[in-house]
């Protein structure tokens, strides 16, 4: 079979992917297949929320308070049907989860990209330049890594709130969250990239480029970066799961997005007030969604780490 595929020319990117070791190890791991299915369907559901959600919970005008606390799979007093029940504001829990996952995923993805951008640029430059600059950057990373990321995010969130005028708080809330979580997570990226860069820097192709007088920035971005991107991808996937959890934690603590546009963490915060009174569905469904999302992304990250590690092959 490999004979056949090898003779098929020219090979497109898709074909090359299906021929790769990564795809092979993916097919061999049922857990990963399940995790990927769950993650992809959750992400799709979140992306398509405006089209598949039965109601729009982010439009306060469409809510009716008298729909509140309807049990799952039942009709409210106002005649609306709720699959996962409704919360204390008469919002459909299913729709709120769909819209809420959008907020959670958006914050997590943006925060991870932000952390990557900072981490990669600092790590690359530190690993390549070395010396005092390297020491300073890495000591800052070490200090930051010795604190739990959530504490740092809380601190940054507090400072940002102080800087931004109160009238802007709500419109800026999502961006502040992204910056807080991003700044809390850059150190991992910086460390990994710096280590890989220091290895690459010694290699002949870098020396060759340098002798040819190529601009250091171009060497870094054009030559070194592509070679250190493998481990970054692994950290990014696991970092994404962490960012989802961190966003949920911050929102659970009440410092996240406004309650009229809840993320999964906000929904869990709202729901936990109603555990004793028996309205379990307000907490249960968002919590299960969060667990599934974080777990599946984490499992994917684990698999990617193994798949990209030549020593484990």
């Amino acid at each position, binding site marked *: 079979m490999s004979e056949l595929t090898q003779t098929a020319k020219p090979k497109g990117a898709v074909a090359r992917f299906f021929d790769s070791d990564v795809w092979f190890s993916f097919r061999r791991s049922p857990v990963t297949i399940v995790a990927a299915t769950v993650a992809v369907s959750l992400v799709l559901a979140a992306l398509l929320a405006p089209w598949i959600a039965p109601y729009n919970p982010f439009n*306060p005008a469409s809510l009716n*308070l008298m729909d509140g606390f309807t049990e799952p799979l039942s009709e409210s007093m106002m005649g609306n049907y709720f699959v996962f029940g409704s919360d204390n504001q008469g919002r459909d829990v299913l729709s709120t989860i769909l819209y809420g996952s959008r907020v959670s995923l958006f914050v997590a993805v943006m925060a991870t990209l932000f952390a990557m951008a900072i981490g990669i640029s600092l790590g690359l430059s530190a690993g390549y330049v070395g010396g005092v600059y390297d020491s300073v950057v890495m000591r800052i990373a070490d200090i930051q890594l010795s604190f739990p990321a959530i504490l740092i995010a809380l601190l940054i969130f507090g400072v940002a709130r102080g800087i931004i005028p109160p*009238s802007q*708080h*709500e419109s800026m809330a999502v961006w502040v969250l992204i910056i807080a979580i991003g700044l809390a997570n850059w150190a991992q990226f910086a460390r990994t990239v710096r280590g890989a860069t220091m290895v690459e820097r010694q290699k002949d192709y870098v020396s060759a480029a340098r002798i040819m007088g190529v601009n250091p920035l171009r060497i870094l971005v054009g030559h070194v970066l592509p070679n250190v991107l493998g481990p970054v991808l692994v950290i990014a996937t696991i970092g994404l799961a962490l960012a989802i959890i961190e966003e949920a934690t911050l929102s659970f603590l009440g410092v996240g997005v406004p309650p009229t546009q809840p993320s999964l963490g906000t929904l869990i915060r709202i729901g936990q007030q109603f*555990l*004793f*009174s028996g309205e379990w569905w307000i907490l249960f469904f968002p919590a299960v969604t969060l667990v599934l999302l974080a777990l599946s992304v984490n499992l994917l990250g684990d698999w990617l780490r193994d798949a990209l590690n030549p020593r484990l092959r």
Partner: protein
Amino acid sequence: MKRFLLAASVIALAAAATPVSAETVRWARSGDALTLDPHSQNQGVTHTFNHHIYETLLDRDSEGTLQGRLATEWKVKEGDPTVWVFTLRQGVTFHDGAAFTAEDVVFSLDRARSEKSNMKQLHADVESVTAVDDYTVEVKMKGPSPLYPNNLTNTFMMDKTWAETNDVVEVQDFGAGEDNYAVRNTNGTGPYKLVSRDPDVRSVLALNENHWAETKPAVTEIIYLPIAEAATRVAALLSGEVDIVQDVPVQDIERLAGTSGIKVETGPENRVIYFGYKFGEEPLKSSNVTDKNPFNDPKVREAMELAIDREAIKRVVMRGQSIPTGVPTPPFVNGWTPELDAYPATNVEAAKSLLADAGYPDGFTVTLDTPNNRYVNDEAISQAVVGMLGQIGIKVTLASRPIAQHSPVIINNESDFYLLGWGVPTFDSAYIFNDLVHTKEGHYGAYNVGLYSNPELDAKIESLGTEVDLEKRDATIAEIWEVVKGDRVLLPIHNQVLAYAMKDNITLEVHPENQPRIYTVTFD
């Protein structure tokens, strides 16, 4: 012999232990007293705790009626309407054994009026306090002040000698983070003595055997346990770790009442929850209408009142635990009438056409500032109102903050639209008018967040302070309420209902100012 002794001691121990454990009450609520210095913080939780150790000249019963405590009689001096005469209870001693006399009252009132005191606004009209004899005190006011005794229900009496010995003549400056001996040590005349104190964790009070009251309290020991998290507090009662829980979340009332061995007492609190908005021509900071202030149009205010469904808020958000109202004053307050309390039925269509008449057929946008940890379900109420106003086209952004961050926005008049609650410790309308309605100037209008201003009304409000003819005064109050309600100066939602949960062998009445007194507890 040995065995007999052992048996006897076991029996003796059992006999001694049973009544003691039955008379200890473990009392949990959301927060701890901020300080034990009695004049340092004018704050409900702090007063409630201190009322067990210190006593005031006057007090209120659970109906809100004024009654004597350390004073047995209080009246205006004959021939001088500006002087109040208080006759003191005799035979009262402090916990350290010192006698309670007029010089302690003079000292305490002077301390409460001093610069660093947080109680001073209640005594702003006092000119001087003098001791006539050991058991008579005269308070000279700046003018006739017929309602001054109402201001004395949270002003505690300290021992002058004790204060001087322990260097606590000056009040602790709480805001500046100051500390003094009186913050953790006490010497009051109250029914309990402080045994131990671990702030925010646990405080223990033991019965004062020498208290003046003829009937001794049934509770001999109080263990006070602040538990901030509502679910944890409820769980502690369910698992038998505490006996009384104050601040029961409304959603848990049904569950607790349905649990055998636990009962829930509910009763109205002397506190109204309302929305306020910015007055004046200046455009709102948070609105898409940039050339004028929509709230300044009476039609818009009327439309908002018609859009809000108070019954739905009561039923869903408050689970029946609120008393919807059309006037920003609780029924306990002098000046309240059922006519004022009435509110219009919700009518979304009428609200929409009013809004269109006012020139906003498509509504407008605005930000609503709400606290999320101060009043019962405060954030959920605001969220519900966001939805209701959304139905008539007013698009509201919700800014929800803990009270510590909400307060500065309120006090500095930075809010366009806000939620606030107002308790009335004096049980008189003037307290509401002074702070919420009067133009913000001098010591008036501290919480007039919307900067409403009506000079005619201001003159009437000021006249209440010195009017001696109570009938005439009540007529003026009625006139002021007429305007306040007609102008929709505020948008009241409901009066809060309090719920205390306890083991079912305990009886504790709900106190209208949310200051339950454990010395009134009885056991079945």
